[in-house]
């Protein structure tokens, strides 16, 4: 039986994959620490599944190496790698019952008495009752758990999950996210999870690598990625960001003052991933929930030292916990603001002149040479245009 001894980090060095003239994954270095829950996040076609399949051995890398702990597994076929995969839409064996599906890996490794282990594993995923059913007799969520059990029973060094929750409905997906997280904590195996759902990645993973067009854009903890995006793609793909085109004006201690239209905004230099030479272009970002909204008549009550922008409410939608406003501002045509529904100001209806203000510490600065629309819905087109222009 494979053991999960120390030093079981997954190390990808310079790994890449090309199909003819198309590069699915650009040379990539990635270390996944042992025992972590790691997510590869990106839109479809960004190379995340290809990366996962190269770790599994289902795809041969065009260059680079895959190491599991001390072992170089680049040349090993999948059946010799101490790695198991939970496939998208599960790939359960339709001719075998649940028990035999789960026992498959153990039997292939010549383990005779599988009964105890299979029983325990089915208990772990709460499917003890279903052991003698065929996969097609189970619901989607149950099949998903079988797929996890079938992989986990082999005590792999790494469990690879390829969009494992994609086929489930929203409610079940939430439930399975927590379930998978529980199982991961319980067994302590490294999980590498591929998903296009940013919420899923943030809920489950300790570390998230955001991939775009075959490259890792940024890697970090979910909170770090959300608060300190270093590219417009990450800023837009993880949640929503308001990006304001601005020009660097002066420095004030650890802060930078920028000019956007006729407003002056302040942001901490430490949260600026782009060079900040005076007169240089910068994209100033701020998340919609960090912003407060005041009626233009109340502008005098805004505490000093906050960043402020004026605008007119273009649209508002009430979604229960919050109200989402779209503000038409001279510095940013579609500024999004989410306001918690605590004390609703009934004057804030479309057409009202408002002042937006926020703590400067919540702003971040990005390189202005990128498309401010990268990572938004329908970004594929705008990105292509952007690349041509570049």
């Amino acid at each position, binding site marked *: 039986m494979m053991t999960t001894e120390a030093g079981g980090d997954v190390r990808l060095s310079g790994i890449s994959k090309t199909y003819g003239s198309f590069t699915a994954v650009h040379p990539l270095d990635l270390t996944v620490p042992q025992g972590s829950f790691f997510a590869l996040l990106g839109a479809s076609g960004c190379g995340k599944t290809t990366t996962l399949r190269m770790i599994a051995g*289902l795809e041969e890398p065009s260059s680079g190496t895959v190491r599991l702990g001390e072992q170089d597994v680049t040349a090993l076929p999948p059946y010799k790698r101490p790695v198991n995969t939970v496939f998208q*839409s599960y790939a359960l064996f339709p001719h075998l019952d649940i028990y035999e599906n789960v026992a498959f890996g153990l039997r292939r490794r010549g383990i005779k008495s599988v009964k105890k282990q299979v029983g325990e594993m089915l208990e772990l995923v709460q499917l003890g009752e279903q052991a003698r059913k*065929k996969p097609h007799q189970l619901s989607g969520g149950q099949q998903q758990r079988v797929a996890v059990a079938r*992989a986990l029973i082999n005590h792999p060094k790494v469990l690879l999950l390829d969009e494992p929750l994609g086929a489930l409905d929203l409610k079940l997906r939430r439930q399975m996210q927590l379930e998978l997280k529980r199982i991961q904590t319980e067994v302590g195996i490294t999980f590498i999870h591929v998903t296009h759902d940013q919420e899923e990645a943030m809920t489950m993973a300790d570390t998230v690598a955001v991939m775009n067009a075959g490259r890792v854009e940024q890697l970090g903890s979910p909170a770090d990625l959300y608060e300190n995006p270093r590219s417009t793609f990450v800023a837009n793909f993880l949640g929503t960001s308001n990006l304001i085109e601005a020009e660097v004006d002066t420095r004030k201690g650890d802060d930078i003052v920028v000019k956007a239209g006729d407003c002056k905004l302040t942001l901490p230099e430490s949260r600026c991933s782009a060079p900040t030479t005076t007169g240089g272009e910068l994209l100033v970002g701020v998340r919609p929930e960090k912003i407060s909204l005041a009626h233009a008549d109340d502008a005098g009550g805004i505490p000093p030292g906050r960043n402020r922008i004026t605008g007119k409410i273009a649209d508002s939608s009430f979604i229960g916990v919050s109200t989402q406003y779209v503000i038409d501002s001279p510095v940013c045509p579609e500024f999004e603001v989410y306001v918690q529904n605590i004390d609703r100001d009934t004057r804030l209806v479309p057409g009202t002149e408002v002042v937006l203000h926020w703590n400067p510490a919540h702003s971040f600065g990005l390189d202005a040479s990128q498309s401010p629309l990268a990572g938004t819905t329908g970004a594929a087109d705008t990105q292509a245009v952007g690349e041509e222009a570049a």
Partner: protein
Amino acid sequence: MSTLTEAPPPLAPPAPEQKPPRGRGRLVPYWLLLPGILWLLVFFLMPMVYQASTSVQTGSLEEGYKVTWHFATYWDALAEYWPQFLRSVLYAGTATVLCLLLGYPLAYLIAFRAGRWRNVVLILVIAPFFTSFLIRTLAWKTILSDGGPVVGALNTLHVLDVTNWLGITAGDRVLATPLAVVCGLTYNFLPFMILPLYTSLERIDPRLHEAAGDLYARPSTTFRKVTFPLSMPGVVSGTLLTFIPASGDYVNAELLGSTDTRMVGNVIQTQFLRVLDYPTAAALSFILMAAILIMVTLYIRRSGTEDLV
């Protein structure tokens, strides 16, 4: 049809869906079945009844035949022609096994490896059907002719020594031996094996192969534990489509065989068309049908296809 041109009355309530279809609509399935049922009645059931009655008639061609419920014809036919029955089963069985051995790798390649050549190869598999069955079998007569290149090559390679020892060829000849008949049967029924095999292999999700590999199954184990079990529906229908017609076939034995390789099909044909002993021919036909039914039932029971998805 007139309703098609009229707009539906605007105030009519929408018909509730769970209501059974009324009037003519309810009869539609039966109307659709009617041509097929009529066809089977005229061309299958009536001849069957006619043959069944023929098989229990006695008499002669000159005096005419009468139904005398003479079931002894069955026992006599079986007693006299059991070697031909046995030979039919043996030849058809061997040809079926050969078809499976030849057809499976080909179907596998077409399903998983042929890529964009898939349709071309599939057409090539069916291509022989563009020529008549008889002409193709006659061509085999030339291919296997005495002193021809095939026999010469087999002789040089000492294959004939082995087949002679096995008793499936005689002397320097391949033609007019069991080997020739089995080869002809295999050739003629091969597409009937390949097509169902291909269909069931093609339906297998390639990710199941990946999943098996991921779960420590080497390629040969993946085949044994995943691919082959999942292709069982194709194996069963392929073997049935080959074995059933092959065991009733008489053309291959007629053209490529000798009097020592006569199959039950040849006997039936002779009894009907040459000896004109209609009761015996009819009885033989029914015995063959019953034998095939029994064998097929046992086979399907054993292979347990109803358990497969």
